[in-house]
């Protein structure tokens, strides 16, 4: 494990990561929140990197798994289900508050199952078909989220689900701030540490996967599927595994997202989000873990910084260009320019790596 070699550089970055939210806190919680969301995106990008970067399968419906995780958490830890189904109230007089350590694995498993379900019929096909089918799958999930308020109200339709429980650790909900050895830890800071630990764990998992037999098999499939098959690899199962594992990351990120935002609606899970995660992976360097993290951080933090540029621009353009449009423009340009100028990404692994 190269990454754990104790190097002064590693120590310094560890220290920076530890104190970062405490430094940002005084400037306002909004800054820490931006970093929190960026960490969720890093998690998503790492998951998609397994599918796109390692196995070379373009998944354009990745946000569906994110949505599945988020909705599962929201349903199991909010008043939503009890409100729509009165008889449940007799069983849960105190309300439905499933703890996060129960929901999180469930989200991961459910998303993984959906990943297999989606992958199974399409994996025999060429990559570009897979892209379209996954895109269609993302849309199907979104149509269901939008319309499952009738005849039984499950998802509350376009209005979304609110009142979601925050994550509770050792009896303390992370939505409240705590003071410890004289330092105040805001809610967003607490979530920062939780997300940071998860991301670090995810990075370790990704590295272990990459250097494992499975990881090498995925890369063989990415480089040349026919040759990989000829070498005796069970390409179908390996691709399904990539799909399932990638989806798992999405499910976990979704559950965290729901707990962090405490409100979710179908609007957060549109195609644009899927496209954005793909853009992160591609911009950073598909298949290279540090590159993917860089891509995710860049594409999630830069648009936030652009908000400050957006205000004067909005006045100049009589309200036509606002921050979200600017963000979209940036993502679109990133995808086109990254492919045209630097198809292997900003921080590619080496010459042989990258997109195939």
């Amino acid at each position: 494990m190269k990454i754990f070699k104790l190097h002064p550089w590693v120590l310094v970055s560890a220290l920076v990561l530890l104190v970062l939210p405490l430094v940002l806190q005084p400037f306002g919680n909004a800054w820490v929140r931006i970093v929190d969301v960026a960490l969720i995106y890093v998690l998503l990008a790492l998951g998609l990197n397994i599918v796109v970067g390692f196995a070379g399968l373009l998944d354009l419906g990745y946000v569906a798994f994110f949505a599945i995780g988020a909705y599962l958490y929201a349903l199991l830890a909010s008043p939503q289900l009890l409100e729509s189904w009165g008889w449940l109230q007799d069983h849960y007089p105190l309300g439905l508050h499933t703890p996060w350590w129960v929901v999180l694995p469930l989200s991961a498993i459910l998303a993984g199952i959906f990943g297999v379900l989606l992958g199974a019929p399409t994996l025999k096909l060429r990559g570009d078909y897979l892209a379209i089918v996954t895109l269609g799958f993302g849309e199907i999930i979104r149509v269901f989220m939008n319309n499952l308020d009738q005849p039984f109200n499950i998802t509350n339709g376009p209005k979304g689900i609110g009142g979601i429980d925050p994550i509770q650790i050792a009896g303390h909900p992370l939505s409240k701030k705590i003071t410890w050895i004289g330092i105040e830890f805001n809610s967003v800071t607490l979530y920062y540490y939780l997300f940071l630990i998860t991301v670090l764990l995810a990075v370790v998992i990704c590295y272990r996967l990459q250097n494992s037999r499975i990881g090498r098999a995925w890369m063989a499939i990415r480089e040349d599927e026919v040759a990989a098959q000829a070498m005796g690899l069970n390409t179908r199962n390996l691709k399904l595994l990539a799909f399932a594992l990638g989806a798992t990351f999405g499910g976990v990120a979704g559950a965290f997202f729901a707990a962090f935002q405490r409100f979710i609606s179908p609007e957060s899970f549109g195609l644009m989000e899927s496209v954005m995660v793909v853009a992160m992976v591609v911009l950073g360097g598909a298949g290279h873990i540090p590159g993917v993290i860089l891509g995710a951080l860049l594409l999630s933090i830069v648009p936030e910084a652009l908000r400050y540029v957006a205000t004067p621009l909005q006045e100049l353009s009589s309200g036509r260009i606002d921050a979200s449009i600017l963000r979209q423009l940036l993502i679109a340009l990133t995808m086109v320019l990254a492919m045209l100028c630097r198809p292997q990404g900003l921080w590619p692994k080496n010459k042989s790596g990258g997109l195939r």
Partner: protein
Amino acid sequence: MHKLNIKNPTNNETNPTTLGIGSIFNMDTLVQQIINGLVLGSLYALVALGYTMVYGIINLINFAHGEVLMVGAMVCWSVMTFLAREFPQLSVGWAFTLGLLTACLVSVLLNVAIEKLAYRPLRNAPKLAPLITAIGVSTLLQTLAMIIFEPNYKSFVNPLPSDPLAFWGAVITPTQVMILITTVVLLLLLVVVIHATRLGRAMRATSENEQIAALMGVKPDRVISATFAIGAILASVAGVMWAANFGTVHHSMGFLPGLKAFTAAVLGGIGNLPGAVLGGLCLGLIESIGSGYLGPLSGGVLGSQYSDIFAFLVLIGILTLRPSGLLGERLAQRA
């Protein structure tokens, strides 16, 4: 703040009629659904032809093709709005015709430019690279349209009277008649172009084998540009017709028709021109009849808001059972 909402503005947009529960298996309703399905399907067919021609020649799913439809409709709307303001004495019919011609011109220039700038440099790049660029171009066009035309829904003035014509217990609007006639005319023109001109022969040769076609004196770049231009004409006409039929235009209107037209192209066998038309018509019929009967058959549990799902279910089904499509033969797994 404007959130990009890719879904259609209203679910009614793709299925103009909604049925009462009492009318299951009523013959008149079936005729009505078939008419609606054929109209919708012919629009899908026009767009699907663009996908299939491009795919046949350079093996690329041109993701931005749906956006060409949107640009066509938007340009036509802009020209009509401009003419209505500056030259109020001009009749709506003339404004519509001028708008349609401008839309075709702009779409052709746009599609050819996209191919030159975004796809041509990547023609020999790894497989996924042009696909990702195409998605980027699609997003870019949508965002630019949102900035230029503003993100609201705009009502599109229909030049034709809206009184429906009744026959066999069903109704058909003049716009729907126009769509069917236009589609047939365009398809005949396309057949002539493909089978009776030098360009058509060059296109067929290039799609068969680009290198050998080049050896025979065909200029592949020129043929590819021409393919994108023809696809753009078909898509922008479809976009204008779509706008006339449903009465609104907006920046994300190209997404779903584009996706469904791609499904239609796969359904018919991608790379196969008659297949794209057949696939489009089939998909239109499946969607229209399916969404019409879904509500009554499921006892009102699933309503017509699920009509958008049909296309994707058809896509997944066809790829699982018969990946070569209805009319396609050659679709081996290429490494």
